[in-house]
């Protein structure tokens, strides 16, 4: 590559055409309730880990839908599987189980 002395920042735009949804579809197959999330944020609000490091199941679900796997998994690293979010989810998603399923499908 020729060095032109400058770099171009990568686009932050999400292109839905190019998004590979294979893994998300596999997740939805074993954990159909993931489709019920309406992004209310109750899980993140009740999360103890979120007080210490960026942790958000709400955002992780969205990022997985957008095939941003690494960022999504980073947002679940702090999770200690305490299950408080399961108690607050108004759509009755078993969020604790969902997090385990996410690890099953996406975990390395």
């Amino acid at each position, binding site marked *: 590559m020729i060095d032109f002395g400058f770099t171009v920042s990568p686009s932050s735009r999400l292109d*839905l055409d190019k998004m590979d949804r294979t893994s998300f579809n596999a997740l939805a197959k074993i954990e159909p309730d993931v489709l019920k999330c309406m992004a209310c944020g109750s899980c993140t609000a009740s999360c103890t880990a979120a007080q210490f490091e960026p942790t958000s199941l709400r*955002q992780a679900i969205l990022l997985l839908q957008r095939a941003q796997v690494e960022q999504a998994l980073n947002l679940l690293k702090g999770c200690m599987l305490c299950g408080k979010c399961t108690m607050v989810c108004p759509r009755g998603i078993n969020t604790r189980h969902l997090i385990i399923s996410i690890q099953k499908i996406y975990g390395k």
Partner: protein
Amino acid sequence: MKNNILVIGGGPAGLEASANLKRMGYNVILIEKESKLGGHLAKWDRLFPDGVSARKTLEALTDEIRGVNCFTETQVQSLNILDKSYNAILSNGITVLADAVLLSSGFDLFKAEKKEEYGYGIYEGVITNADLEKAFREKKMPLNEPRAIGFVHCVGSRDEKAGNPACSKVCCATAVKQACEIKEVYPNADVYCFYMDLRMFGRHYEDLYLKAQKEFGIRFIRGRVSEVAEMADGRLQVKAEDTLSSKPIRVTLDMLVLMAGMRPSEAGRSVGRQINLTTEDDGFFSSEDNLLAIQKSKLPGFFYAGACTGPKTLPDTLHEARSAALEIDRYIKENTREK
């Protein structure tokens, strides 16, 4: 008891009110400017929230109007307030002396071509909610194995630049309903709804939303579509912000359905102007009281029912039609000599 009641507009509101007034023994004259009765209901296919047939619903309403003097393709040419009655000259030459008038002129669909950035009337793939209902009704679906289809909420609603800051109430439920229906026709297509807020307020509406997510896999993207452009192959490039992930988003679609909102009926407003009926800032008629007396205008003997006083669902409209009939009955008994 043979007092004349003039009902202007033969949509769901006018039909339901006429049937009730007739049953109460009044002489009802119902006029409709189009060649067929039914108003917008005559254009829809299946209704939210339960998917019942619009055709059957309309039949049930028209079955009840036996004995009502019904004139289609008829408008009000002039309307005057007399001492305790209204004198209307109709476009068919008939003059009606009415003891009370019910205005049920409904709404006009927002003209989607006004939102030029969405390309309605310019790009073939861009249609409205009403166009899609027509396609469902006639069973003539416009696409062949589409890959992706999008719905844009709030077109001409909640948009000061489009001249309407208000919510049109029915289009969220319509979008979610149509998204499920389109997925039934094209199960392999990705279906997106671009929304700002989802207003699924009524009984069973939230169930419809949940079904759209879980059973149909409809993808809801919170963000308003900013622009649409046609590509060389005729497909559409759509841009928006995915506000939940704070990133710009783009997607290529085969069809984009615009949820055009509800605007006051122009034909209704021209009747209003003849007797100086007042409207609110949104252009819909002003009621005597927005809580206690939506069906009453500020003029004695002049009443409203349905979407002429703002966006309404079908059940809202029908309830108002029935209560307007009761109000008219009470007004006649208290104010006019029975004939």
